[in-house]
């Protein structure tokens, strides 16, 4: 495993930006700043995949209980996002993509962000356990721990495989949705887990290819920084191919019908085609465009696959 040491010294939640606020100064944070701290775009993806997992699960879940479970999962995702921004405030201040976040911009003090994130995390786990199910709450607690401690504090600044292993945190929500509805785990939620797990590397590496200078400046050992653009493009192609196959497994194993299978295979083929295009592109500007195209399509891919799963679950019921 490739490891670089330069970034390791940054592993401290200290904000060096001149805009950073002290905990002793009156807060200038607006409600919108706290919402931004929760990474609402990531939350929406988490809620969607968790909802699909819940709808696919066997058995009936009361709409109020289902809503409560989704609320807890979304709040937990926001809490994890806030804790991530608290810990990463130093490197966020150095990267153009993240410099506008509430802590580097000086709108929220790091301590406030930590308190906010920790409170929401505790509330969401306790609420899910008390009102829905303790196994789902345990899985939710583990997901927050994995994202904040394993990914943010450990892997992100240590290894270029950060996003591969850390991607598991984003893959748990459909599983949590399933467990919240059914109370147990089976093969199907594991397949959903693996779809998101193998989707994460090509999605993030496509983005990081266009932000190499940012990551290098911040000392974050993303794959393009450590291994170069060519190796990253090769890995994107490999993971996209694996994703295309894994995306079709719910159909190949007989859990979903041919409509899902054909959709997943077509979307997977398009993902591979875009990854191939990126792999073969040598001109910097055109390669950047190809990376952006793949990044945008990867979001659409996940939406299409989960939307078809959701429609099938609604039409044919949770199990075929």
């Amino acid at each position: 495993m490739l490891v670089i040491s330069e970034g390791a010294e940054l592993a401290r939640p200290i904000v060096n930006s001149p805009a950073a606020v002290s905990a002793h100064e009156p807060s200038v944070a607006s409600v919108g700043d706290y919402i931004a701290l929760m990474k609402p775009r990531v939350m929406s993806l988490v809620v969607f995949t968790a909802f699909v997992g819940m709808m696919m699960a066997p058995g009936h879940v009361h709409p109020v209980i289902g809503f409560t479970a989704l609320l807890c999962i979304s709040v937990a995702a926001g809490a994890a996002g806030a804790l991530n921004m608290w810990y990463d405030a130093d490197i966020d201040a150095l990267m153009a993509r993240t410099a506008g976040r509430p802590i580097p911009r000086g709108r929220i003090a790091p301590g406030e962000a930590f308190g906010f994130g920790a409170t929401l995390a505790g509330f969401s786990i306790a609420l899910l356990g008390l009102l829905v199910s303790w196994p789902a709450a345990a899985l939710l607690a583990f997901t927050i721990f994995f994202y904040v401690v394993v990914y943010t504090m450990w892997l992100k600044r240590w290894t270029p495989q950060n996003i591969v292993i850390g991607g598991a945190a984003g893959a748990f929500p459909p599983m949590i949705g399933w467990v919240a509805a059914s109370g147990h785990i089976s093969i199907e939620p594991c397949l959903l887990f693996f779809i998101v797990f193998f989707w994460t590397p090509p999605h993030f590496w496509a983005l990081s290819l266009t932000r190499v200078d940012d990551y290098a400046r911040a000392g974050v050992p993303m794959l393009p920084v450590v291994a170069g653009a060519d190796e990253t493009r090769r890995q994107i192609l490999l993971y996209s191919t694996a994703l295309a196959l894994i995306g079709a497994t719910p159909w190949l194993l007989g859990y979903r019908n041919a409509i899902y299978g054909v959709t997943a295979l077509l979307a997977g083929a398009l993902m591979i085609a875009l990854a191939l295009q990126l792999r073969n592109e040598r001109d910097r500007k055109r390669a950047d465009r190809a990376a952006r195209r793949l990044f945008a399509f990867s979001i659409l891919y996940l939406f299409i696959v989960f939307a078809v799963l959701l429609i099938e679950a609604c039409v044919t019921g949770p199990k075929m």
Partner: protein
Amino acid sequence: MEREPGKIVLTQEQQRRRRARSIAIALALGALVILFYVVTLVKGPAVLNRPL
């Protein structure tokens, strides 16, 4: 009004934002109360039955 030494005086903008944050917290707590009430109605006596 004279400013006391060592005492922080909030600007109008800071006061407005503090008020907005306080309202957001109040709304969240109110929503939590309603959520507990509705879930208790939905679950009925089973609300106390939470096997691990």
